[in-house]
């Protein structure tokens, strides 16, 4: 059993040991640079890089000033020229100060350069609400990056998946956005030893059932699992898929499931408009229309920033209760 934050550290460690071209950049990922306590007084504010600087040195574990555009740009330039850079953006919310480098540079290099180059970069971004971290430190940005052609987007929900998907991300030749839910860092799970890779675009079947399909990622998977357990007691069988990667997307698993259940719930942490939830809904409304027996229900945040106060943030977030209610609604739907 290992905490997800340690899985991340250990996986990076293994990949850095395996391949000299892997480097890491970010703010305070060493910690203590230029301070009396000295380097690695800390080892990353998320505890995901402890010990790496001591092992691999300043040329491979690179602490940077607060300059997110330069962090992504530097990781991109290094990855274009032979490295495999892992960039850490301390909070996904900071994508706003470095989006051009992600969207117009990293995501488009290969296309713009006629397929003659690669940019094997991993951009790690802790994301998500649940910490009362207020509007600028609580956001989920997976829709924004999933919308960007040229990026792959990963959202692990378990310790084992974190290892398999992160190793895959680092070895992948395409740019990968690796989204780590802040609330999951402390969660523990079994992790396979040795080389362990999970290919992108393959959903994980969490629970099986024939009544309702539930799609979720990241922290929402646990919420949906709780809801599914409750629903099972009430005799409603849930087919819960943890999508693992939003781009590429396991369309097949989704469509197969909906064809079986005829009902779809989508659980998504971000606000509803132009979201990953709408993306999944549209997929099914176009490609599995004839199987649908009820309206597609989306359980998402509202169209508002993530508020600070505990009561407000709780009201903002999806919850097992809201999922259960939506499932009951879908089950009781009769075409009018």
């Amino acid at each position, binding site marked *: 059993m290992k905490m997800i934050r340690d899985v991340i550290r250990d996986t990076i460690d293994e990949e850095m040991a395996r391949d000299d071209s892997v480097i890491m950049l970010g*703010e*305070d990922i060493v*910690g*203590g*640079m*230029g*301070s*009396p*306590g*000295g380097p690695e*007084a*800390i080892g990353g*504010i998320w505890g995901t890089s402890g010990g790496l600087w001591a092992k691999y040195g300043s040329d491979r574990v690179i*602490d*940077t*000033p*607060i*300059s*997110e*555009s*330069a962090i992504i740009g530097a990781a991109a330039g290094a990855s274009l020229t032979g490295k495999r850079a892992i960039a850490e953006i301390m909070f996904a*919310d*900071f994508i*706003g*100060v470095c989006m051009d480098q992600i969207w117009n540079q990293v995501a488009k290099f290969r296309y713009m350069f006629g397929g003659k180059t690669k940019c094997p970069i991993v951009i790690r971004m802790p994301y998500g609400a649940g*910490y*009362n*971290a*207020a*509007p*600028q*430190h609580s956001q989920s940005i997976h829709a924004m990056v999933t919308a960007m052609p040229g990026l792959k987007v990963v959202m692990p929900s378990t310790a084992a998946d974190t290892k398999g998907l992160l190793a895959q991300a680092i070895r992948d030749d395409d740019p990968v956005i690796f989204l780590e839910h802040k609330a999951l860092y402390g969660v523990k799970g079994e992790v396979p030893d040795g080389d362990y890779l999970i290919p992108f675009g393959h959903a994980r079947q969490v629970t099986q059932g024939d009544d309702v399909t539930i799609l979720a990622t990241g922290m929402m998977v646990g919420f949906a699992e709780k809801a599914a357990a409750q629903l099972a007691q009430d005799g409603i069988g849930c087919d819960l898929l943890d999508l693992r990667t939003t781009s590429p997307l396991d369309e097949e698993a989704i469509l197969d499931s909906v064809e079986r259940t005829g009902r779809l719930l989508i659980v998504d942490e971000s606000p509803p408009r132009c979201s990953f939830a709408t993306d999944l809904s549209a997929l099914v409304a176009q490609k599995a229309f004839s199987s649908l027996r009820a309206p597609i229900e989306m359980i998402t945040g*509202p*169209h*508002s*920033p993530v*508020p*600070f*106060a*505990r*009561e*407000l943030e709780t*009201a*903002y977030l999806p919850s097992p209760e809201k999922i259960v209610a939506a499932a009951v609604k879908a089950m009781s739907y009769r075409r009018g």
Partner: protein
Amino acid sequence: MQLSREALLQAYRQMKTIRMFEDRLHDEIALGEIAGFTHLYAGQEACAVGVCEHLDAQDFIISTHRGHGHCIAKGCDVVDMMKEIYGSSEGLCKGKSGSMHIADVTRGMLGANGIVGAGAPIAVGAGITAKGTGNVSIAFSGDGACNQGTTFEAMNMAVVLKLPVIFVFENNHYSEHTGESYAVGAESMTVRAAAFGMKAIKANGIDFFSVYEGMREVIDYCKAGNGPASIELDTERFFGHFEGDPQRYRGKGELDRLREERDCLKVFRTKVTEAKLLEGADLDRLDDEVTALIDRAVAESKTATRPTADHVLEDVYISY
């Protein structure tokens, strides 16, 4: 030192209010009473107050993630601030914002800000409003924030547009856990700011009088229509970067030494009493006053109304 007795008392009251606000928050957070990320300002009081004692409600400031001191110094209601940090719907921002986004635009306080470097461009905009009115716009930034592209853009744009904007760099020598000497590649942020084409000076950020005098100089410069200026304040933070930070990046005994030798409140007290401008008893009285205020703020916050689910969608838009 041409400050009146009232002005001196007011400066001390403000600094002490900030200190006690932060000390008390530190304790309450340790008790688990307060949610979210909180960055305490204790140690840097002479900066906020030395700057803001020059300002009135028509002058603008914009702050950082470490914003409580600036808010208090600019006149935000201390009780309402505390309620905000407790997440009450009676809070200054109705519990939507918490520590990191406290604002009161009616007092010219354009908000704490969770995005490092985001404030400086906004201060440039307030400078557009202030231009020609005799007022100024102040961007507070840290020694880490000064490396962010937005801060640089703001400095250049303020010079190009000759705006009355003052970039106040509070150099507390750390950005999170990283030493300033590592992250600022330049000889100093002041040398760098000067090269942008503005007046750029330094002051002693643990000495209220030094900050106050320095600010007078740059404010006069701005008001004379010369465009922006910057002032770097050498200061110290007494708590961790955020609450919970074990501060292993500090040197051995560093914090004890700072609290002993570089406490701006002690420095102020010594200066004004030695110069016989105020008596110790004057200051003690203010200490009591402030203690009562902070006690009341915390007590009221603990029982203040909590927000409810129907507030979530309020105030996203004025009309929609």
